[in-house]
């Protein structure tokens, strides 16, 4: 026992002697990471079991927040439904579009120009672009979309895109898809450029005779790390949908039609100051994205 602990101690001393400069290199980041990432995650988990309104100290209430959340909070269920609908559509779709566009761009000259065109929407300020979309989807006949549809004869009366329960979510999805050629898109593009030519040549010798086979048997396996990164990003960003939804339809939105999990979190946390309850929402969201993230890790490591 004592021997074990002295041995461990000497290992620590060895590691320190050998690597102390390196530990010092990492120290500033680690301190900030612990304070602003690790501690908040642990605090969120703890607070989710308490009642906390920021005026009195947190009061332990066990699983009550979770019980309330899943059994009695109908608005949360709407938020979950909206978020799932959003994620199921935009997650895979944005992933596929990003990869497909990257694949085609990789074959073109003036790649930089095409890359910029598709990437630009994702770096425009969300708040600035929502203003533009408010013009385009404007509820009256001054709205460009309404005008066009009336002109073409598809509708006779302007559609209230941003207040109608049935159109809010589709509008949010369209704007999000438009903005979704982001980091993953660049990662795919760079990944495609880094696949060694010899592999394609070897593939042809092995009898690959069309582009689809080439993508499936050569490109995709080589690009697994980039594809996994893209998958993780797609999952995280599609489940965290909030900003566009909030700017298009407000918090809370008409009949909660644009209400998402993060919107629910925001509403309870920063409008009603129910920090314990909001933390429970955060933990649920964290759990969903983490499980899906691990699942995609598994998926990508099996397909060798």
């Amino acid at each position, binding site marked *: 026992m004592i021997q074990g602990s002295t041995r461990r101690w000497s290992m620590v001393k060895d590691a320190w002697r050998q*690597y102390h*400069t*390196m530990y010092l290199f*990492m120290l*500033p*980041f680690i301190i*900030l990471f612990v304070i*602003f990432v690790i501690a*908040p995650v642990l605090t*969120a988990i703890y*607070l989710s079991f308490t009642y906390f309104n920021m005026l009195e100290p947190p009061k332990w209430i066990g699983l009550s927040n979770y019980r309330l959340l899943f059994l009695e909070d109908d608005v949360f269920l709407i938020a979950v439904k909206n978020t799932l609908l959003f994620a199921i559509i935009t997650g895979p779709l944005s992933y596929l579009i990003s990869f497909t*566009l990257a694949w085609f*761009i990789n074959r*073109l000259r003036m790649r930089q120009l*095409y*890359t*910029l*065109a598709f*990437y*630009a929407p994702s770096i*425009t300020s*969300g*708040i600035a*672009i929502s*203003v*533009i979309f*408010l*013009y*385009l989807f404007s509820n009256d006949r*001054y709205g*460009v979309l309404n*005008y066009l549809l009336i*002109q073409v004869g598809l509708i006779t009366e302007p559609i209230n895109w941003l*207040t109608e329960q049935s159109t809010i979510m589709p509008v949010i999805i369209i704007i999000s898809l*438009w903005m979704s050629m982001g*980091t993953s898109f660049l*990662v795919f593009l*760079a990944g495609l450029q880094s696949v060694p030519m010899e592999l394609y*040549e070897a593939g*042809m010798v092995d009898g690959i*005779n069309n582009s689809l086979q080439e993508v499936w048997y050569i490109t995709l396996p080589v690009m*697994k790390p980039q594809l*996994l990164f893209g998958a*993780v*990003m797609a999952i995280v960003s599609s489940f*965290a949908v909030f*900003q566009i939804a909030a700017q*298009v*339809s*407000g*918090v809370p939105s008409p009949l909660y039609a644009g209400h998402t999990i*993060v919107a629910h*979190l925001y509403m309870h946390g*920063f409008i009603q100051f129910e*920090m314990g309850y909001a933390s429970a929402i955060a933990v649920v969201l*964290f759990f969903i*994205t*983490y499980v899906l*993230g691990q699942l995609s890790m*598994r998926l990508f490591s099996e397909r060798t």
Partner: protein
Amino acid sequence: MSITTRGKNRFKRLISREASPAEYIVMTILALVTLLPIVYMVSTAFKPIEEMFLYPPRFLVQHPTIRNFVELLLAIDSFSVPFTRYLFNSLFVAAATVTGSVVLSSLAAYPLAKYPRMPGAKLFFTIIVSALMFAPEVTQIPRYLIVDKLGMIDTYAGLIVPALAGTYGLFLMKQFMEQLPTELIEAAKVDGASEWRIFWQIVMPLVRPAWITLIIFSFIGTWNDFFTPLIFTRSEQMKTLPLMMSSIGGGPGIVARYGAVAAASLVITLPTLIIFVLLQRYVMQTMAYSGIKS
């Protein structure tokens, strides 16, 4: 005979990975459609107010004017804080965050990339990759409580310091640094250079594409960030451009002061586009390394 020629042609077609004219046409149309809202934004910023309420609505501006930009400055003047203050806040917070995160994440990435056998390095990197898997929104409440406890609410520190713990930068730098030849570092050590000097004089110049990429992402992220300043600031003096935009616009779903808002949209979008265009070539050298090996 005919079979061999066909085989040869096929070989040629695949080897010259040239797109067909049809592909160019389709991709160009798609690119233009994607750019439409941005073109509309630029065009609207220069529209005189009468043109904004034209019926039928016009997509492009007929008689461009800079009146909207003047109105933007005037609209802000009726606020307690001048436009330049929001601009300064945005620039200062972005510059400090970018500098800080490049330095801190590069420093932390170097040991992870080049001394993977260092005790704790593997575990730490696993934690970093897991941290990529949750949205920052998840930790916003406790982070707010911590920032509050540290007395950083409504200060520049509150807008800058928490952002330095961003995990993507560290992840990217580590992945890129891994491909540096270890012999180079060993050789410098034999010559008697300290780790500190090796880092600044050998490693950092070699991974320039990576940290330039990080500058772009960190700048765009901070510049566009709406949520953090919304929660961490209280006084008008500490607010950044995205918050200013939402106050002159009049809130979600409402569009007031059309002209000023349209001008502000352009002002706020331009810097991110410019910085990306200027530094784009470095991004492509870096992004292939942004993969997760499972």
